């Protein structure tokens, strides 16, 4: 019997597999395919104070071994998430969910986090300071140590729940930003969000994405994510959640020695709705193959 349990910021997970925000909706779409209680947890769609449509379409483009999205934080707003999405989720999911929060001001991050702090279903607050698809919000907070620390402090002051800060790879030095968040009181770091990218339609010689640039994700970004997880995990003492291109149980076993306590799956959920379920099932098999008895024993130290 292998042990897949890990503990993320004081909350025990049956396994380290967490579908990432923006690739799993509010969960119930996937519950039509499988019992999502088998997951470690999942991070719900980035939520803001007001409802948002996001960017004009087209906002999806295919790439080699990945995709670009410029959805731009479409969500029904925190009130509807609490009144409608969470009760709907409760019918199909009885574990803790990670609440992904975004905003356009420090006050907005704090407001949305304070509202979600009251929800028993929420186990962690994941603060998205790294969305590349909105102007004047999201990533602009995650590209400076000062702003990232300010958001961290503001959210920490309104919630008892563990706070993870989700960082952008589109920065000069992700390590210094992670350290600034740690010093400001963050309980954990999730990384990486998507990489800024674009595609051009050769026929029209125009960008495929209406917003021109978007966030690149998928298996192609896995080595970039792994490298950043390794560097950040070495530099901070708080837990790190590894995100970026994870598509197989073997990718999880590679992410954890780099320093990830838990691992998020992203774009793969969109091309194979069963992907995270298959990764959960595949973990014990892969662990046996590589003589791993306990997943928590392989975190860091590579």
């Amino acid at each position, binding site marked *: 019997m292998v042990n897949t349990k890990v503990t993320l910021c004081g909350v025990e997970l049956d396994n380290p597999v967490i579908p990432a925000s923006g690739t799993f909706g509010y969960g119930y779409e996937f519950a039509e395919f499988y019992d999502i209680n088998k997951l470690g947890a999942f991070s719900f769609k980035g939520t803001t104070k007001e409802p948002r449509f996001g960017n004009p379409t087209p906002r*999806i483009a295919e790439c080699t071994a990945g995709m670009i999205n410029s959805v731009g934080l479409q969500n029904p707003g925190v009130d509807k998430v609490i009144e409608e999405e969470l009760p709907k989720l409760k019918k199909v999911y009885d574990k803790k969910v990670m609440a992904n929060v975004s905003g356009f001001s420090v006050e907005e991050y704090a407001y949305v986090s304070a509202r979600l702090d009251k929800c028993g279903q929420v186990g962690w607050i994941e603060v998205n300071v790294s969305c590349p698809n909105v102007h004047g919000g999201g990533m602009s907070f995650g590209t400076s140590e000062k702003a990232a620390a300010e958001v961290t402090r503001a959210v920490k002051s309104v919630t008892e729940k563990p706070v993870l800060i989700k960082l952008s790879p589109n920065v000069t030095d992700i390590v210094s930003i992670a350290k600034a968040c740690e010093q400001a009181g963050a309980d954990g770091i999730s990384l990486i969000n998507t990489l800024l990218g674009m595609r051009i339609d050769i026929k029209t010689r125009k960008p495929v994405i209406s917003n021109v640039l978007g966030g690149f994700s998928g298996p192609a970004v896995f080595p970039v994510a792994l490298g950043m997880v390794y560097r950040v995990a070495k530099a901070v003492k708080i837990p790190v959640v590894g995100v970026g291109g994870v598509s197989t149980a073997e990718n999880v076993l590679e992410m954890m020695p780099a320093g990830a306590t838990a691992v998020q799956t992203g774009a793969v959920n969109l091309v194979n*709705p069963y992907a995270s379920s298959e990764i959960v099932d595949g973990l014990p098999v892969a662990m046996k193959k590589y003589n791993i008895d306990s997943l928590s024993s392989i975190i860091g130290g590579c």
Partner: protein
Amino acid sequence: MKRVIFTVTENRPLTASVYKMSLSGDTSAVTGAGQFVNLAVEGFYLRRPVSVCDRADGILTLIYKTVGGGTEKLSRIKKGAKLDVLTGLGNGYNLDNAGKRPLLIGGGVGVPPLYLLAKDLIKRGADVSVILGFNTADEIFYKEEFEKTGAKVYVTTADGSYGVKGFVTDALDKVDYTYFYACGPEPMLKAVYNETVTDGQFSFEERMGCGFGACMGCSRKTVTGYKRVCKEGPVFDKGEILW
């Protein structure tokens, strides 16, 4: 919706760039005309959404156009190959409002989903008319198949090389209809929206990420809020559309 491994039983060109593919397997998730499937194509990261043209006796019929590398690869798949398919996606047409004389309006590769719709409406006893619009005579497909269903078929070509010269809307005055169903490129849908005299339904196309409602890539603003083309759509009522 369901993931099913289908076996390709047919994959052949109907015109220079339009192909017909038949798939054998579990078709139970397809509940009505206007739904679509999402095909995994080896070597391409995202699936390719294709509308369901017909569903009968364990066979799904799809008609698709080669527009890029993924659909070109799809067109080279041989009989007997296995295909990973998410099936029964989206909400199809509502047949209840059709009235006695529904009109089906399709443009180009928007024609296929209307075939199953025509069959289902005729089964219900409706007197069905169909307007099929193409650019030129060489691009016409499925005219005879529609005629065999018992529907009255009008063809338009933009260059006048066959049937009525012009667009699908140029044939509207030939038909006395109680309701309409339209599928085709967005400029065509908009023209149909402006020139039809009854209520109706439209099927939309959009670049999709997942095809089952998770990524929010294909959303559209409507009178009744933000809707996902892949999940609440692809069919929308005339009354809820915002252009």
